[in-house]
């Protein structure tokens, strides 16, 4: 049974302290409800410090934060990617010492079923648009070049990233190889020098 802490209407440090006390008394999982964003950040910060997973859902006028111990959850390999994304949230993680670069080298995410992989990749690109701090650059090469061309389901989300200030760069050699050179629908074409330089200068490289 998960234990519930209703900290709505309460100011820091009470949401954090009541959650801490519930964890000490009952162990994880604990669900905490908070109604202000700073309290949410402080509870999530404590969870990280305690090595717990925090899953936050926005509800009408409040947040529901579920704290679980990571061992119990049985980590799905793909979850590590989500953790990487969480690290990008402002105020949560140490800021990286340079721009964040997303490198996509396939049109499918993960190894296994490629139909599933393509659906995951579509979800991943959408999830990038939802980050508080957008990546500086998205590099697309080999199969990844199929994501930025006419007809690809990921084009709209890549356009959203571009409007948010991200640079979308697709490998020209790869577009040529797949016969897609005329079909580029978002961002610009790049070469291997720029790809190598961008990755070398990155503070953090994210690879789905």
């Amino acid at each position, binding site marked *: 049974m998960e234990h519930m802490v209703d900290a709505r209407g309460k100011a820091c440090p009470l949401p954090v302290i009541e959650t801490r006390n519930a964890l000490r008394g009952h162990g994880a999982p604990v669900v905490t409800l908070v109604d202000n964003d700073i309290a949410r950040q*402080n509870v999530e910060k404590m969870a990280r410090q305690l090595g717990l997973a925090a899953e936050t859902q926005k509800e009408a006028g409040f947040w529901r934060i579920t704290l679980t111990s990571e061992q119990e959850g049985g980590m799905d390999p793909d979850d590590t990617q989500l953790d990487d994304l969480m690290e990008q949230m402002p105020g949560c993680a140490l800021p990286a010492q340079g721009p964040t670069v997303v490198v996509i080298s396939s049109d499918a995410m993960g190894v296994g079923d490629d139909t599933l992989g393509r659906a995951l990749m579509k979800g991943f690109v959408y999830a990038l648009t939802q980050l508080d701090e957008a990546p500086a650059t998205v590099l697309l090469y080999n199969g990844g070049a199929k994501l930025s061309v006419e007809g690809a389901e990921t084009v709209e989300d890549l356009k959203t990233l571009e409007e948010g200030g991200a640079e979308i760069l697709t490998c020209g050699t790869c577009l040529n190889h797949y016969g897609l050179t005329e079909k580029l629908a978002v961002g610009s074409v790049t070469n291997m020098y720029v790809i190598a330089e961008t990755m070398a200068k990155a503070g953090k490289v994210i690879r789905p």
Partner: protein
Amino acid sequence: MGEPLKFCRGGGCTAKLGPAALSRVLAGLPRPTDPNLLIGAQSSDDAAVYQLTDDIAMVQTLDFFPPMLDDPYLFGQVAATNALSDIYAMGGEVKTALNIVCFPEEMDLNILGEILRGGSEKVVEAGGSLAGGHSIADQEVKYGLSVTGVVHPQRILANNTGRVGDRLILTKPLGVGLLCTAARLGQADAKAFAGAVKSMITLNKYAAEVAAKYRVHAATDVTGFGLLGHLHEMMRPDLTARIYAHALPVLDTAYDCANEFYLTAAGQRNRNFAASRAVLHGLSFAQEELLFDPQTSGGLLLAVDGEDAPALLTELRTLGLPCGEIGQLLPRLEAEILVEP
């Protein structure tokens, strides 16, 4: 004095509006054009400075907040010490002060008397005259001072005039916000908390008098925005501050309070504000929290010539509060502020 003060949601400097929100609002105000206004709101400095003659500039500041202590006399001392501090952070001396009071109509007026007694004693200790004030009925107690001082126009200590090679010296320990938060929940160690109170009621006058004997190029006081928030106000595009977390002066049990998660909303707001400006390498959770901890009546942060730093620090230590050389100013590297363990 039976009735203790009630803690409000966040007392002392934790009650400050967040720096990010504040910058947005202030950006919309018209800019003053009087050339005699040497330091105004634009430079995010500690106090306003207005030149009256070749030799005299007037320094003005104002600070007030809800109680962070349940003893009204001590609260009055802390609030006054905190308000007077901005004059010292500009290198000035205190001349006059006016009380700012919010007080509930139904509350025992003896409590107000104790607050004002504490405040007035600090104004006298600062060498100033309490010259009046203004009070309004309000639901919560709030107290502070509007302070006027003077400074020689050539000896103004601005925030952002530090030089490459300067050492950064902090004159009071960090951790006041964490200890006050633990105390609100009845969890503070009594002796450690007494240390926090002693720090909060120590005028920055004494540290400023020591600093005046040395080549100090810039100064600010560390209050609600925390060490990194106020350090940011000292930075320029051509400077990087390198901070050694192990050298930070901290109050007893402050790290324990962080590890027990006595976290303030203000501390998290400070973290959000500083996140894009500061790179923290390999610090413990508690060290990070201390960097962002909102300080009520915190110390002066001085940028002092590298050759003068050891002597200044030695003299500062005789004042009896934990203090330390916490870092240095370098030419701009990859980030504005770098913090190492």
